């Protein structure tokens, strides 16, 4: 989110809510950064002219929906690689943290003894960061004061659910082979790099086309 220091309270609230809502939309992340900067500039100019946020933007949710419909979307591969990479990164870091604390034992055994409780905690964190925050931000324009309940309920359901179900699905201590940990870390790096590369490639294609001052319709159009 850009620096909103120049905005008054009303405009700042609207802008921040738009940012939250647009974070749930399928837009190339670099393009989204540009869009949020544009929206901030529109808000600042609107404020300077004495217009209200409603006079400047109209219906806020419809405005954001139209913006996301017309912006360059993130491809499925970008989205999948990002979320998969993030998921694997969480567990890679968790495995590596456990390895650091029990390196000698792990090397002797040839595998890492991983606590079910740790697995539940990290899985819960992932679901909270992705699913619950998505729902929280998606309803940015609705029931603003009630949204905190979404987080509380989400946490209780996911955390409680995990701890209830996990004992039936997983042993108390899991034996994680070192090769598996290595593969997880490797795939994590590949996925995050792929997501990064794709995002920047699509953004750069768009910028390059702009700088050559288009002569014909091209394949970049979606």
């Amino acid at each position, binding site marked *: 989110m850009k620096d909103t220091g120049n905005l008054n309270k009303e405009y700042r609230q609207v802008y921040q809510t738009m940012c939250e809502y647009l974070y749930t939309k399928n837009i190339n992340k670099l393009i989204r950064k540009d869009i949020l900067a544009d929206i*901030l500039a529109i808000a600042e100019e609107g404020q300077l002219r004495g217009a209200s946020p409603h006079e400047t*933007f109209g219906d806020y949710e419809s405005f954001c929906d139209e*913006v996301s419909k017309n912006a360059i979307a993130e491809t499925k591969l970008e989205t999948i690689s990002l979320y998969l990479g993030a998921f694997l990164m969480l567990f890679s870091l968790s495995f590596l943290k456990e390895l650091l604390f029990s390196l000698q034992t792990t090397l002797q055994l040839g595998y890492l003894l991983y606590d079910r409780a740790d697995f539940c905690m990290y899985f819960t964190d992932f679901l909270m960061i992705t699913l619950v925050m998505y729902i929280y931000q998606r309803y940015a324009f609705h029931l603003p004061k009630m949204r905190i309940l979404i987080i509380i309920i989400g946490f209780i359901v996911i955390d409680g659910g995990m701890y209830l179900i996990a004992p039936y699905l997983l042993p108390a201590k899991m034996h994680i082979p070192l090769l598996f940990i290595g593969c997880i870390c490797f795939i994590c790096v590949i996925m995050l790099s792929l997501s990064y590369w794709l995002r920047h490639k699509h953004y750069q294609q768009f910028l390059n086309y702009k700088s050559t001052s288009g002569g014909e319709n091209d394949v970049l159009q979606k």
Partner: protein
Amino acid sequence: MYDKTQLMRGSLEGCILKIIEKQTTYGYEILMGMKEAGWIDVSEGTLYPILLRLEKQHYIKAEKKASPLGPKRKYYQITEAGKMYLAEFYENWQILEHTMLVLFDDRKDT
């Protein structure tokens, strides 16, 4: 009661492109041009998504420049593809206008 939004949606793009064709311009200036022409229901919130779409389709290109009011402004300029699109839009508009006049004025098609 007739809902004119669908009718507006189809013509806004062409009107915006026409204003940009006349000179390199920015959002608020485009809005003023639209209002002077009679589009009283538009706001910058209506225009920005359309400008995004036109930019995505490479009918216009945008450049940020310093502004006297404070924040940097995005100035829009029509591209060659945009000019071709605008010409097609206007051609189709003229056909539609003629058809509507024939139907509503009960004139014979000449």
